[in-house]
């Protein structure tokens, strides 16, 4: 199938060209963050303090990799279930976050925020942790080191294979897929 090649930071023109169901290769930098890091982001914002990373134009990957074996940049690094981050995502999108990568459906509030703030939700194939690790070329802890496997890690990625799930036009690949193939 046709593959769209995109790079970070994501600009609005690129996002406008993405449609649910597209396969993309993503190159650039992304940040891992899951439950504990998201909770801390929101607590930080509530205290009117700055986030430890500038999320404007950036992409967050919901991921908790397996340990890197010696000589490897990272272990298996597939996505975790995104819905656990739903409560936090609209706030981050309002601050300029442009993309999220995970697996599974998002809440209505997240989908609305995606349209409103010109963003995109990508699916990485769940359970394809080895394949996804091949596209990671660098990895550096940039914040919340005390959270261990949940620390924020800046990943350099080269042609990371993803699918667009929610686009700015309100399309949802999960709904479209079921509607098309249910019989």
């Amino acid at each position: 199938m046709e593959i769209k090649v995109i790079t970070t930071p994501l600009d609005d023109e690129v996002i406008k060209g993405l449609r649910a169901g597209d396969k993309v290769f993503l190159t650039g930098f992304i940040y891992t963050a899951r439950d504990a890091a998201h909770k801390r982001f929101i607590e930080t914002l509530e205290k009117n303090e700055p986030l430890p990373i500038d999320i404007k134009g950036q992409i967050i990957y919901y991921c908790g990799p397996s340990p890197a074996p010696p000589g490897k940049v990272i272990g298996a690094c597939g996505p975790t279930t995104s819905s656990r981050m739903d409560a936090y995502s609209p706030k981050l999108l309002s601050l300029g976050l442009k993309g999220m990568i995970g697996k599974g459906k998002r809440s209505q509030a997240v989908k609305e925020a995606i349209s409103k703030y010109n963003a995109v939700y990508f699916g990485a194939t769940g359970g394809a942790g080895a394949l996804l690790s091949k596209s990671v070329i660098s990895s550096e802890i940039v914040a919340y080191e005390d959270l261990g496997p949940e620390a924020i890690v800046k990943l350099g990625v080269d042609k990371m294979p993803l699918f667009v799930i929610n686009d700015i036009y309100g399309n949802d690949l999960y709904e479209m897929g079921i509607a098309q193939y249910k019989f």
Partner: protein
Amino acid sequence: MREIHTDEIISTIERLFIDANINLSDEMLERLNKAVEEEKSPVGKEVIRELISNAQIAKNEQIPICQDTGLAVTFLEIGQDVHIVGLNLEDAIAEGVRRGYKNGYLRKSCCDPFTRKNTGDNTPPTIHTKIVPGEHIRIVVLPKGGGSENYGEVRMLVPSDGKEGVKSFVLEMVKKGGPNPCPPIIVGVGIGGNFEMSAILSKEALMMPMGERNKDPEMAKLELELLEEINRTGIGPQGYGGTVTALDVHIKSMPCHIASLPVAVNIQCHAHRKKEAIL
């Protein structure tokens, strides 16, 4: 009477968990290769192709197929003429798990239910033992990820619910899981026994060889009907839509109380990691 030392059990458990997490079985690879052909959706086909190349990369690079290397589910069939010497058996299994998850660079995913503090070494394992005739021990490991395990349930149906009741329960669970248990899935159904037995049967069902049907023709028919209905839901690979939502459905059943119809559904993801050894 044959003596088996726990050192041998420890090293076997260590090896099996590493092997299971890194090397997808030929049985699963064959099934995925067939699924690419069966799948009608182009996106679905592409997802399954990713899963096949994922398995090859994991093997070549010797890294886990999936980062969720699971809770350490271990089944043992112990021959009644075996005498286990050395450590206490449960301690030996835990030690094998500890070594496997450390030396294999597997993720430790076991924590306290409320404080959520990680136990640090993926112990304690979940151990199921059975005493069987003979003088061997058969060990089967099934590292089980959280995403798929979360969509399992035991339900006490009433006898009048019958087969239709079982079907609608299974379909309800598959739809509830949607994309989260990483389809294409394998569905294990335990029917009968009692509350806890149905759950164990459903997990044992997951360990049946791919494509093998229940010996009871009625149950075999129900397996195929369920598979067909699940694949009509349209969920598809990764939930992106398609015709291969499940790779197989297995039922294990046994007689139950005259007043009950216990049913358990246990869902397994495409990262179906199962390895075994006989000592």
